[in-house]
């Protein structure tokens, strides 16, 4: 396995370099680019980033493990992140989780064998006013009900 940034990403990184006194400041943007490119951050990607911005891989790895939004294991094409924090928990998160589990046949932390879905539970998504909430890739889905979840998943399954 090896990792290489796409040409566009490399250009973006070069452009970002001029914004900071040292390229070492770029670990977060580089990690994001790697995650968008491969859906997760591999150890190879961490090595590559280290070379690019002149930091030992351990420094990048520390950052990558600190932020829970970085996936260090491969995830499915649709990464379903269900909020489990207080407001969502009070507004029916348990029911949503059960529904997702039954519908997808997955427990939190698992991915479907066809690589389409990964289900995880996350802390507050910052959208408590519209609880319960889930995030699929970069999209928020609010005021969830089991019926709403079915419609969302149906459309995703159709799309893929």
């Amino acid at each position, binding site marked *: 396995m090896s990792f290489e940034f796409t040409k566009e990403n490399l250009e973006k990184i070069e452009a970002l370099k001029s914004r900071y006194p040292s390229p070492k400041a770029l670990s977060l943007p580089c990690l994001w680019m790697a995650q968008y490119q491969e859906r997760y951050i591999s150890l190879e990607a961490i090595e590559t980033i280290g070379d690019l911005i002149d930091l*030992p*891989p*351990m*420094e990048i*790895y*520390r950052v990558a*493990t*600190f932020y829970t939004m970085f996936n260090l294991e491969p995830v499915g094409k649709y990464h379903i992140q269900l909020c489990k924090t207080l407001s969502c928990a009070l507004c029916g998160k348990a029911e949503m989780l059960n529904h997702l589990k039954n519908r997808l046949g997955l427990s939190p932390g698992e991915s479907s064998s066809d690589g389409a879905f990964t289900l995880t539970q996350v802390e507050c998504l910052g959208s408590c006013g519209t609880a319960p909430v889930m995030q699929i890739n970069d999209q928020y889905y609010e005021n969830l009900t089991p019926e709403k979840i079915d419609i969302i998943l149906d459309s995703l399954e159709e799309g893929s």
Partner: protein
Amino acid sequence: MSQIDIVIDNMTFTAEKGSLLIDLLIKHDLKVPYFCYHEALGADGNCRMCMVEIEGQKRPQIACDTLIKEEMVVRTKGENIDGVRRDILELELINHPIDCPVCDQAGECKLQDFYMDYGLYESNIKQSDKVHHRKHIDLGSSVILDQERCVLCARCTRFTSDITKTHELGIIGRGDHACVSTMPGKKLDNPYAMNIVDLCPVGALTSKDFRFQQRVWFLTSSPSICHGCAKGCNIFIDHNREKYKDETIYRFRPRENQQVNGFFICDEGRLSYKKLQDNRQLDMILNGKSCEEAEALEAYRNLLEAGSGKIVILADANLYTEELEMIQIYAQKLGATLSSPMVSDLDDAFADEWLKSSQRASNAKAIEKLGIMTDLPDEKIALLINFNHPNTVSIDAERVISFRTNQQKEPADLILPLAVFSESSGTLTNEDGIEQYCPKVITRNDPAPTVIEWMIRCQEEVE
């Protein structure tokens, strides 16, 4: 920078303006608890244990990140600050396992010490509520990590990032899940790695070599000098004599000396204590068979007197200067040529830019100073008397007497046991010309004589 006076606990101290308050506290033995600060690693300010009160400041401050200013009034004691320390300690210990009875650090553990000094609270947490981490992880380089016992002071990670610059270790994750780790699939791998065992204030990092060998409160620490190379790093020899057994060395630890080794030693030097015990030459061997001392001394005289011809004396460049001088006088008396060939002593694979020297003989400088020759006479040798020089096999001599600390296959008529450096005392001159005295530390039940003791016995025989 200017020297100024500040007041600590109602006493006046003089210190450099702008220097670290914690350094002053440490220097004057004013008790302040701390985990993360270390003189070699600097301030990190992460453990918050080193709180003191400073007049005019609303809240307690960490001493490791406080610069000394004019008219500073500091309090390190008192109910208030003790309470603060108790609370911080309680947080440090929230997830700490109750491992002391089986933990190798017990007895030299900062958590234990601080708990006895400032803690002594009733725990608010049930054992079953503690967050668990991985235990006994083999990090590599003979270091074992127990993640649960870690207080996340980052001394070990700062050692690999700032001192060795090898960057193997880091604190990964966050909150309850934060722990020390290497990169997945990677090992701790550098020739100074075991220093992190000494740096770790708790039992999270232990030495694979030392763990479970001995409870530390049974050990006596005696100052000494490592003989691993010409750097002459300062060490403590930790040793103990168990009932019915011989005095045993359990470990070497670095001893601070800013002129020589700073705070650290290399791993090879650290583990070289084994040579002082393993495979020792303890018997007197005459023509391949052990013999009594009287017999050996008679044989010694006979070998000396058996015919004329060239006598060559070899001296190991690890012997103490006093021993070398004695051998020098003895050589003059016998009309012998004294030499200490350096061939086998240079080791470029061992050397580095920091402590490790390519000159593996610890007292090579003294050989140079005493004007002892370092090559061999090419005449035919009638009698070779060897004082523990490693290289006798390649030398062709009619008769050979060899004084040995450790067993070695060699064609010698007479082999006599010799004390190792910890069983003798004397001076070493390191590669930078610094003279260091090395006291006798170990007394065996059945001691091997030192060079000086042998010289006295043999000369009595000669006279």
